């Protein structure tokens, strides 16, 4: 994969639900090879942007392409992007082994050996129903299924919000390993900054449906007087009058 490719390009992208713009005039180029942290307060439009990127939603304005120009939701885009939605929805009454079977059947590529080895490492029994797993195990199963698809871009929507600190750490370690070892680009949203600081190399800050800040974290920190990513993000959020009003 060429590192100069953009895994996501949004051009004046907008999404309206009823009369409210959840995302507006969003223009972004996310280069490949990064772990991109998409941060912002609740209701900032993070989920909307991710839904548009994975093709679950259609734009109301502008456009979005992925993996070097494929329209979001197109067959090539679906093939190359693995998405783990918020609260990691899985078929609760289907066994882990059947979730593997279903995911393998629905995708061109699926690394069965990888999936099985990882679930064994995690101590997730294949005959257990997905709904009977702990929250952390469900998140790990969803992530394993996503990574076994060998995606070029992994999209995670608030992946750790519901997890306890240990499960959170394990989950992020897996993401980090996939990004480091295999060069999978990652786009993950969160409103918890502390977990991202260690992992992310690129930052997109959303507030009120608009992009406030985007860039490599090293560059952003070097250019600002703020000592940490968290301080930097907070300073931008505080500059937004609408956010103060919330």
């Amino acid at each position: 994969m060429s590192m100069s490719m953009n895994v996501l390009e949004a051009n004046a992208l907008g999404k309206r639900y009823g009369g409210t713009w959840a995302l507006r005039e969003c223009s972004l180029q996310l280069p490949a090879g990064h772990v991109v942290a998409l941060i912002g307060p609740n209701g900032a439009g993070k989920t909307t942007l991710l839904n548009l990127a994975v093709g679950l939603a259609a734009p109301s304005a502008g456009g979005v392409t992925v993996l070097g120009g494929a329209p979001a939701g197109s067959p090539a885009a679906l093939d190359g992007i693995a998405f783990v939605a918020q609260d990691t929805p899985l078929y609760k009454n289907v066994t882990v082994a059947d979730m593997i079977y279903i995911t393998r059947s629905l995708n061109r590529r699926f690394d069965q050996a990888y999936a099985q080895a990882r679930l064994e490492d995690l101590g997730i029994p294949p005959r257990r129903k997905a709904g009977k797993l702990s929250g952390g195990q469900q998140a790990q199963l969803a992530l394993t299924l996503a990574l076994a698809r060998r995606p070029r871009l992994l999209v995670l929507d608030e992946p750790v919000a519901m997890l306890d600190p240990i499960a959170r750490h394990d989950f992020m370690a897996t993401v980090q390993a996939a990004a480091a070892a295999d060069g999978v680009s990652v786009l993950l949203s969160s409103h918890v900054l502390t977990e991202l600081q260690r992992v992310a190399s690129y930052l997109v800050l959303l507030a009120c449906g608009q992009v406030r800040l985007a860039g490599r974290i090293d560059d952003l920190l070097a250019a600002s007087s703020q000592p940490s990513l968290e301080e930097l993000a907070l300073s931008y959020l505080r500059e937004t009058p609408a956010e103060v009003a919330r």
Partner: protein
Amino acid sequence: MTAQTRPAEPAEDMTLGPLPWRRMGGVIWRQHRFALVGVAALLGAAAVYLWIVGSSLHHAYAAAVACRPVGSPACQDAVNTFNGLDNFLSNGLIVQVLPVLIGTFVGAPLLAREMETGTFRYTWTQGFGRRRWTLAKLVALGLAVTVAAGLFSLVLGWYYQPYFSTGNYALAVVELSPFNSGLFDLGRVTFAGWTLAAFAIGALAGMLIRRVVPAIAATLAVYAGLAFAVGGFLREQYLTPLVTTGLNLTGSAWVLGQWWTKSGVTLSQATMVQVMDPIFARQIPAVPSNDVHLFKQQALASTVQYLTRHGYTYWTRYQPGSRFWPFQWIEGGWLLALSVLLIGGTAWLVRRRAA
């Protein structure tokens, strides 16, 4: 922990066609085996029950029609035995709930559960693509319930056969028109057709309402409304009814309306009651009051004959029994067309649905 994944080359995506449809076979089985096995078990149990009670029904029927001399006490007993069997099945109403039950409980949760639990976010972002995923599920499961219902209707056809035999009437054996509102729906075309329609209504309701229980309730309501409208108003219009002044309609005919005229003037019900009552009374022979009911049918027939000899005309608007199969195919045909339309609409909704 090492993630041993290897990113695909971009060029790979451009040259490959879509994933083969057959991949959905195992997926559908793993996700819906409970529903599919449930449908098979329900219909299987009902078929076994029908076979057991049907065997005695056929047996009793054979005894009733073979009995000689007709009208002897022994033959009366045989006829009464047959007539008294399985009255709760003979009107067909209990069996009518099967299509809507199967169609609703397979069709309504199909998409409603995905929407309710959020699993569509997993499914619709897999490489198979959500449009093809939806079509595969709707077509395969719709076909499965239709075929199951079609097979079951063969058992139904066998069970009800004795009631439809022309000639029952002469032997005082119960004879039912296959057009009976509870029985026409159980035909070899219509039973499968209504099952498919219930499935398609359920699937669309599930996609529109996005919650399982309200979708099931809506499906039952819409289905009941449609079945009522068809049975009560629409079905009799499939072909223009025939009108006759003849008095010898077979029991298989579907009588839609009857009225009297004299000198070209239609007579009201009230008028005819006044005209007929004294004549009818004269036709009943002098028998003990306990036996009067045995002669009522005959007396009514004589009354009608008497009146037609005296300038009255008795009109009947009806669908002849020979139209049973055309009507089956007409109803099955539009139910299929409706189902295809609803399934297409559901697939279209899935495609344009914004998360």
